[in-house]
């Protein structure tokens, strides 16, 4: 086949193709290569390949060099290139050795495919698995999606249970948006973040003169949420005294602001959430039984992210798309290596932690493809191949020590969180830290 016929064939295919000689100078460059790289053939031919392709691997791990050195082909490696207009483009490259008709090696050939269009397809995929901004393909979450419209239609109190960072507030928002109260306000209050007295005045409001510094009337959240929904987050942290007042509001739909003698009607729908086991709190006498049953008219349970691992790619792509949009950046593709690391991680901080990881990687990634080096260090260490991991523990005691060390590290040496994660008391954890001589930074 003559050169002209070869060029016609090369130009008709959708993938970029170029060939190099032994000096790394480009000897052919097809139309698709021009389109993807933004460099026309006129300027590419005769140039050193790294001055045209400008990929992130050119300097550190050139794929074509590896192929020409070992003779082994590389198939579908995800890298990114930067075009003359400063745009990063994710591409998938394959390389092989180029031989003449007598079988002599005359150079190398590289084919590459533009992966940017995959972003649009991923977007469609995410849309297919989202429900009022909650994204999931997990069967348990799909069941939640199915019952949410019915839950929303009623005016019953809803208790959303799930670990921290699992999306409880999003569920509350979805219930509000789907309910007949959607035109009214959605008022959110974190009961765990405020001391008891302050929480009381925040919830119910006060009259001027109720206490020192109460210069004028202040409406509480129950008043602000009138006609809408009140979302009580971290309800498990509320004191017993306040629980009694809350119970009255839920039962009788009335309340009195501090210092007020008149009774106000509570026209709100209450959605409460907790990351604690309310049944256990109830059994230990720290949560009122009657309030529990009053709140738990409808229960929604959200699994932690480790139990719905199939959602990790969808969520990671969703967060990345949102970040790119917010920062007016070109779409970024997540490499398969990064996805593999993300899928293996346990996410003690759940979706919030995944979101933080993606945000960290987004800051470090200049564009194109998210690579393992953009991930936080603790994730990369978590993903070391078995041979580079510390030696496996020999005894149960060693295993216990290793578990405690890893858990402490994962929870940034916060003892309460670590003890909770390990299912032991704070005192036991303290005793074991002392026993194994673990250094805990202050």
């Amino acid at each position: 086949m003559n050169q002209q016929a070869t060029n016609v064939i090369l130009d008709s295919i959708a993938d970029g193709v170029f060939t190099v000689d032994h000096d790394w100078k480009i000897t052919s460059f097809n139309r698709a290569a021009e389109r993807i790289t933004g460099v026309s053939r006129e300027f590419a031919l005769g140039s050193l390949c790294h001055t045209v392709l400008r990929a992130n691997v050119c300097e550190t791990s050139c794929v074509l060099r590896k192929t020409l050195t070992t003779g082994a082909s590389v198939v579908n490696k995800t890298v990114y290139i930067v075009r003359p207009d400063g745009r990063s483009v994710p591409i998938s490259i394959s390389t092989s050795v180029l031989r003449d008709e007598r079988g002599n090696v005359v150079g190398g050939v590289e084919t590459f495919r533009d992966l940017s269009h995959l972003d649009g397809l991923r977007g469609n995929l995410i849309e297919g698995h989202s429900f009022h901004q909650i994204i999931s393909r997990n069967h348990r979450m799909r069941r939640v999606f199915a019952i949410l419209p019915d839950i929303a239609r009623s005016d019953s109190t809803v208790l959303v249970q799930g670990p921290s960072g699992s999306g409880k507030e999003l569920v509350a928002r979805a219930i509000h948006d789907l309910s007949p109260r959607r035109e009214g306000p959605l008022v959110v209050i974190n009961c765990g973040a405020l001391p008891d007295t302050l929480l009381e005045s925040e919830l119910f409001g006060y009259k001027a003169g109720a206490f020192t510094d109460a210069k004028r009337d202040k409406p509480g959240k129950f008043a602000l949420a009138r006609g809408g929904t009140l979302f009580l987050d971290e309800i498990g942290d509320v004191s017993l005294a306040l629980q009694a007042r809350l119970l009255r509001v839920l039962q009788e739909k009335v309340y009195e602001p501090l210092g007020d003698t008149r009774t106000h009607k509570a026209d709100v729908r209450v959605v409460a959430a907790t990351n604690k086991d309310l049944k256990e709190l109830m059994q230990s006498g720290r949560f009122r039984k009657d309030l529990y049953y009053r709140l738990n008219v409808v229960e929604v349970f959200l699994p932690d992210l480790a139990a719905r691992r199939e959602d990790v790619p969808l969520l990671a792509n969703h967060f990345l798309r949102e970040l790119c949009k917010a920062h007016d950046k070109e779409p970024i593709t997540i490499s398969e290596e990064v996805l593999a690391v993300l899928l293996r991680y346990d996410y003690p901080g759940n979706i919030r932690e995944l979101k933080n990881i993606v945000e960290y990687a987004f800051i470090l990634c200049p564009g194109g493809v998210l690579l393992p080096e953009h991930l936080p260090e603790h994730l990369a260490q978590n993903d070391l191949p078995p041979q580079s991991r510390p030696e496996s523990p020999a005894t149960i005691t060693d295993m216990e020590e290793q578990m405690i060390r890893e858990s402490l590290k994962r929870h940034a040496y916060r003892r309460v969180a670590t003890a909770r994660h390990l299912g032991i008391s704070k005192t036991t954890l303290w005793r074991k830290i002392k026993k194994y001589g673990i250094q805990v930074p202050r």
Partner: protein
Amino acid sequence: MRVAVTVFSTSPPRSEPEHVSPLFESAQRLLLADVDSEGVQLLQEEAIGNLDLPHRIVLLARLGVNVLACGAINGFTRNALLERGIRVYPWVSGAVQDVLHILATRCAMDARKGQVVVERIAVPSTGAHLRCQLAPLVQCSHLLVVESLGLSFTATEVEGLACGQWTILRLTRIVVEEGARLLLTASCGPNAHGILGLAGVRVLEGVSGVVEDAVREYTRGASRAATTRRTE
């Protein structure tokens, strides 16, 4: 001015000097130099392979860099550097020492700016005289540098040079050493734009025909534009 050039880590053949790294974001080394009209004073080299993007940007600012000459660079990174007052010349390729030499020559030309009366124009062509055809940069056999007043010129044969950016780099050295700050050509690739931009040479693309006519046409257009500006 304090200049940083990213240096390509893949070792070149022994006979060849070190090249500019292909991509700023994955560059492993950074060479620092102070460049002025007197010449180039090499400073230290920094290993940046372990630095992530934000730290690279912070390092450049901390080292007092005014100008970064590098290979390709993402638009986002480039803007972040510009915000810190660092001027970026992207798509520069070829030997690091040539790049620094071109910058020093540019500094010397900038210093003489007020004294230059006659404008010199570089024109790649198919031959060594003014009646030859103007050629695309990568296909020219000669480089003519023509004075806009009187049309006296010098011609340098560049046909023997290899294709690709080595030609562009040597051509650019000739252009700046001959004192031209403008290049007329039919077309110019991104690597040529990169190095000519670093040299402070303006490129006017889409010009064709006989060299002499193209220069006269440009001079007439430039004087017309100057007259219009004065009468505005």
